[in-house]
């Protein structure tokens, strides 16, 4: 048996396939096999997500819904259901945490994450491929969704890899083969290389990643600035950025627009209590704590007022957070204006410290 190759780092990029529509197709058998798009009700709504069946008609994200309907008249349009997406995402993250510690899972979006599973593969008892397979299998059996996984020695290559074989793919880029893997791909696959830069590179005769990798660095910097050199390093498959799950989501927030403007303090506090419960639920399901609690108010003239309360130590206690939210409300609502919308948000989110600062008073 050949000795497994040595992976200095084993990074997985896990991308759930057509996430939003897949969740709806999973829960509603009538939607399976049909072109489905998720979009709001308004006539000005845009497509948030499209099933593979819909993509075959040219339907894609960010497309105005009327355009999508013109391309695919039989398109099934469903309303977005944030709670259901978050729930599915939470289950998937629970699976991730079986394979590595929480601070080595970096969520990019509800349907996309990087995992550093180096510790799993280091001693040769298991391989990157095996870990990727098991994650795919567990997501499929437990959450009934399919995922595409890219496995490589860096975030960059793992992400490009997963992008090359969707849906339900598994792409392995073993150490030492990164540059060869990237070389034939179009430059647009490199994260951070936007349409403008792409156009400029095309004008310089650079179309494939390999061409960018081999281009004279000085001329590249002249044309694109220092960013050009960074893109070239990426093109060569060089990316040392760590998987950082210690700063999880940036904020968790919830808001509600009142049917009519509200100035009654009691009514505002009731809404505040409800919103606090909602954000704290999500805090708990993400397994993180918050340092900063803010309250946002929209006044009838659409003016936004926002105040925050910061704590010295992060918390996930619902009463503490509610008290903080109430004092932020007091700070922002001194003049008893009527309020059109109220929102509560948590930021400064972090995973609980393994070291525990003890307290003087209980």
């Amino acid at each position, binding site marked *: 048996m050949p000795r497994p190759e040595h992976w200095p780092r084993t990074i997985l990029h896990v991308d759930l396939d057509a996430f939003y529509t897949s969740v709806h197709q999973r829960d509603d058998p009538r939607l399976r096999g049909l072109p489905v798009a998720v979009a709001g009700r308004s006539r000005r709504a845009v497509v948030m997500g499209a099933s593979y069946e819909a993509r075959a008609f040219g339907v894609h994200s960010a497309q105005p819904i009327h355009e999508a309907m013109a391309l695919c008249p039989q398109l099934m349009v469903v309303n977005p259901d944030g709670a259901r997406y978050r729930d599915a995402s939470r289950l998937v993250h629970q699976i991730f945490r079986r394979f590595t510690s929480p601070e080595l899972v970096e969520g990019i979006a509800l349907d996309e994450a990087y995992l550093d599973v180096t510790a799993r593969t280091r001693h040769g008892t298991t391989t990157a491929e095996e870990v990727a397979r098991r994650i795919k299998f567990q997501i499929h059996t437990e959450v009934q969704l399919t995922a595409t996984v890219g496995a490589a020695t860096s975030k960059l290559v793992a992400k490009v890899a997963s992008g090359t074989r969707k849906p339900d793919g598994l792409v392995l880029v073993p150490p030492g083969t990164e540059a060869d893997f990237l070389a034939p791909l179009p430059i647009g696959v490199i994260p951070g290389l936007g349409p403008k830069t792409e156009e400029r590179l095309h004008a310089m005769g650079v179309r494939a990643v390999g061409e960018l990798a081999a281009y004279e660095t000085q001329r590249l910097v002249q044309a694109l600035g220092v960013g050009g050199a960074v893109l070239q390093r990426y093109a060569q498959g060089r990316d040392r950025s*760590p998987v950082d799950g210690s700063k999880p989501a940036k904020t968790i927030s919830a808001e509600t627009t009142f049917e009519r403007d509200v100035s009654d303090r009691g009514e505002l506090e009731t809404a505040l209590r409800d919103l606090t419960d909602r954000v704290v639920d999500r805090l708990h399901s993400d397994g993180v704590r918050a340092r900063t*609690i803010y309250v946002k108010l929209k006044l009838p003239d659409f003016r936004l007022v926002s105040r925050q*309360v*910061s*704590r*010295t*130590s992060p918390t996930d206690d619902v009463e*503490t957070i509610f*008290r*903080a939210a109430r*004092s932020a409300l007091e700070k922002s609502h*001194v*003049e008893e204006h009527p309020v059109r919308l109220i929102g509560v948000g948590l930021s400064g989110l*972090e995973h609980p*410290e*393994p*070291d*525990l*600062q*003890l*307290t*003087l*008073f209980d």
Partner: protein
Amino acid sequence: MNAKAIATQMKVTCRPSVLSQALQVVSRAISSRTTLPILNNILIETTAEGLALTATNLEIGIRKVVPAEVAMEGSTTAPARLLTDFVSTLPDQDLELSLDGATQSLGLRCARFDTHIKCIEAEEFPPGPRPDEGDRLEVPLDELVKAVEQTQMAASTDEARPVLTGVLVQVQAGNLTLAATDGHRLAVRKLPAQGAGDLEASLIVPARALAELARVLKGEPGRVEIIISKARNQIFFKAGNSELTSRLIDGKYPNYSQVIPSKSSTTVRVPTAELTQTVRAVSLFARDSANVIRVKATSGAVTLSATTNEVGDSKAEMSAEVEGSEIQIAFNARYVLDALGVIGEDEVELLFDGPLSPGLLRPPGKEHYLYVIMPVRVAMS
């Protein structure tokens, strides 16, 4: 009716350098975000001593009187930022301020400048509490400033527990005691007061207000008069021509005396400067959020160490007088440095009573200051 007499109100002459300094201090009471626009202004009034400047955010108020020649009495309120910025640029020659009462336009004439600033009537300014009645006591200015410096940094910035954002000011048996805690560390400083008589009081003063005290009273002579309002909702600090007012925080302060350790199993004595320098260096390797530095006391030596996986590690051993049993304990380095920075003694005594019990830091052989730190629970190797 004499229209001209009504049209001109207030005329004073003063030095821009003196006025500028006072404006900068008084402006400290102005909140960057206020819902009441008049609070962006400074109240300017002529008094027997000169020109009085007052600013407030309704939580704290600062008032300073600058020497001025008053030709005509009057008052107005001027936008703090503009006035402060403008006066600070002026050459130090006589500055004449004159107010047109009808238009509330404040003229400033100095050297080659002829400037007019739009003001708002003084009547619009919220009347601040005046320290006329209430209990009074006196303390030496430099001692009060030092005591505030030694305690105020231990107060919490966590507004979810308002009482801890204040400093507890206790008057008892002719002594003034300041205490502050954020729940993780506690600083207590005692100083003698005069004229307190048998007055007993326990007040919570916002740490933010006390943080301004040194700046407000700077350059004033000798003693500070402290006045506690009858309603027990305001405190005044007054020295010379300067005055700081603060509202008090409502609520019950935790009984801090019960968390001051009464016994210890290890006593360490080290030079303050050396310990400070060592903690500062080693703590660069303390992991960023909990900022943990490990302390190991053995016979004749204290070893400090810190590690962060992605950064590296550092260890330093310093000789020390160590009495009692050996100990390993961990602290947030910032809390340690905060105390060392204000203790103001050549040597410092550290008392421990096990790795999970509060540590005590104090000047050796003195009773006026103490600082308690709760440890961090870590996996000890």
